[in-house]
C-alpha cells in the first residue's frame, strides 16, 4: 500500500478537472465550480428535497469528479428558486438562501443568452414565452418590439425557466453555467 501512494500522485493530475464534459447548472447557492466540487460529498439530499425534481444527480457520464453531484438540466426542467436545496445541504457546497426576493436575487447559477438569429420574436413573430416564464420579469429580462427578449446579465440568476419554456427547437435562449461563463468571456476577449 505504501508503494501505491507515490504512484498515485501523478495520476491525480489526470483526473478530469476541466470542461471535458458537458456542463450543466449547479443548484442555487453554489459558489464557483472548484469550491463546489471540493465541498459536495454527493449525499443527494438536494435532489431528494427538490419539490420540482429539476435537480438530478450526475452518473458516470460526468467523469469521476462529478459523480453523484447535483445538476440542473435547464432545457428539461428549470429551477423555481424555492431554495429548499440550500436549506438542506449538510456542507458548505450550497450557501443558505431564503426564498425571498432578496434571496432569489442573490442566486448566481449562470446567465441566459438569446440566439437572435433563431428567436421567433427577433424574426418579427411575436412570442415572449421566455419573458412570461422569467421569475424576475422586468429586472432580469425586458421586452422590446414584438416581445423581443432582452436579458440583463447583472440581474439574471440563471434559473433556466426561460430555456425550459422556449418554444423553438432547438432553444433560442440558453442559460450558460457560471463556470462556462468566465471561459466564454475570456474567449471573446481573446478573439477581439
Amino acid at each position, binding site marked *: 500500500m505504501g508503494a501505491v501512494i507515490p504512484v498515485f500522485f501523478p495520476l491525480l493530475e489526470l483526473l478530469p478537472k476541466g470542461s471535458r464534459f458537458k456542463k450543466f447548472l449547479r443548484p442555487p447557492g453554489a459558489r464557483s465550480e472548484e*469550491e463546489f466540487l471540493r465541498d459536495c460529498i454527493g449525499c443527494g439530499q438536494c435532489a*431528494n428535497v427538490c419539490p420540482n425534481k429539476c435537480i438530478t*444527480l450526475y452518473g*458516470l457520464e460526468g467523469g469521476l469528479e462529478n459523480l453523484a453531484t447535483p445538476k440542473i438540466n435547464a432545457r428539461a426542467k428549470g429551477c423555481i428558486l*424555492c431554495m429548499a436545496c440550500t436549506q438542506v445541504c*449538510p456542507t458548505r457546497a450550497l450557501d443558505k438562501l431564503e426564498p425571498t426576493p432578496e434571496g432569489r436575487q442573490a442566486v448566481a447559477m449562470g446567465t441566459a443568452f438569446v440566439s437572435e438569429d433563431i428567436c421567433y420574436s427577433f424574426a418579427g413573430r411575436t412570442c*415572449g414565452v421566455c419573458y412570461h416564464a422569467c421569475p424576475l420579469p422586468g429586472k432580469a429580462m425586458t421586452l422590446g418590439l414584438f416581445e423581443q427578449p432582452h436579458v440583463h446579465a447583472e440581474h439574471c440568476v440563471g434559473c433556466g425557466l426561460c430555456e425550459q419554456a422556449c418554444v423553438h427547437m432547438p432553444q433560442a435562449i440558453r442559460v450558460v453555467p457560471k463556470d462556462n461563463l468566465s471561459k466564454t468571456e475570456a474567449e471573446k476577449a481573446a478573439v477581439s
Partner: protein
Amino acid sequence: MKKAKAVQWLRRAVQAGVLLMVLMAPFMAQYRVLLANNEIENLRQQGKSNLSNRIYLTIDDSIRGRVNKNPSYNSATEREKIVGKLERLQGNTWSAKIFGISLTDPLGGLESVFASKTASQSLLVGMLVPMLATILLGRVFCSWMCPAGLIFEMTDRLRYFLPRIGIPLRSISFSTLNKYTLLSAGLVIVFMAGLPLLGYFYPPAILGREVHQAADVLFYEAMPSTEAIGPLVLSGALLFFVLIILIEVAVAKRMWCRYFCPGGALYALLGWRRVFRIGNETSRCTHCVECVKVCPMGLNPMKPDPGLECDNCLVCLTTCEPGSLSLNLRFKRVKIEPTISEMEKPQAKIAC
C-alpha cells in the same frame, strides 16, 4: 441469554428500520413531488391565471400569483405547508435530515473537511451526534445501523449453505490494519486531489445513492430520454457492491467490514475509549470458545477487553452459557493479563 437474544432481535429491528428508511426516502420524495404538483394545480385553479401561455408547472407560479394579491404572503411558510409534511425523514445514512436534525456520516464530514480545508458550522453540527454516539458506544454504526452491513450479514449466511451443496469456499484472513491504511491513504488522496472521493467506495453511501437513482429512473420525467444516465451509475457502483458480496462469500467472512472498510476504521478509531465494552469475567469463563466461533468480526471476546475492532454487536452474549461475558460500563482501560494471551494459542485455528 434470553435477554441477549432479545437484544439481537432489537438489533435486527434497528438495522431493518434503517434499511427501510434508506429504501423508502427517495420514493417518499417522489410522492412529495406528486402532492406538491397536485397542490399547485389546486392553487392555480383557485387563483386567476393570467399567465395562460406558461408551459411549465411550478410552485413559483402560484406563489407569484399570490404575492401580487397579498404582500404579507410568506412563501417559506407556504412551502412548509405544501411539501413540509413528508420532509421530516429524508436522506440516507451518508447524510440525512430526520425531524429537522441534520446527521452526517463522520467519514463524509471528515473527507469534506480534508478536501475543502475548511469546516462549516452546519457540517460540524451534523457530525456531532454520530461522533458523540461513536465515542460513547463504540463502532455501533457498523453493527446496529449500517444498511450495507445488514446485507453483508445476510449474504454471509451463504457461507454456511454453499459448502453443504458441495461448493468449496476459502477462509483467508487479511490484516485488520488494511482498513486503517485505506482510510489514511484515502484521506491523503482526498487532501491532495481536493475531491471527496471516499464516498464512491463506501458501501452505505453507494446504497443510498443507488436507491435514489433507481427512484429517479422509475419516476423519470425531468431528463429527456437521450440523457437517461441513471442506469449507468447504477451499473457502475452496484457492480462494486455486488463484487464485494461475491468476493466476501468466496474468500472470507465479512471481509469488507473486517479488513477494508474505511468508515469502519474511522469508527473504530473514534470509539477506542468507548464507555460500553464487552468484558469477560475470567473466573466464571469455561473456555468453551463458543463466543469466538460466533463473533462476526473474528475477535476473541474471552479476552478481558476485545479491543479496537469490536463493534458492540453483542452476538457473543447470546452463546455464553456460563454468563461470564457482559456489557460493562467502563471508564478505565483494562490491562490484558499474560495468562489469557497464552490461552489464545489453540483458538487461532478455530477462528474463522
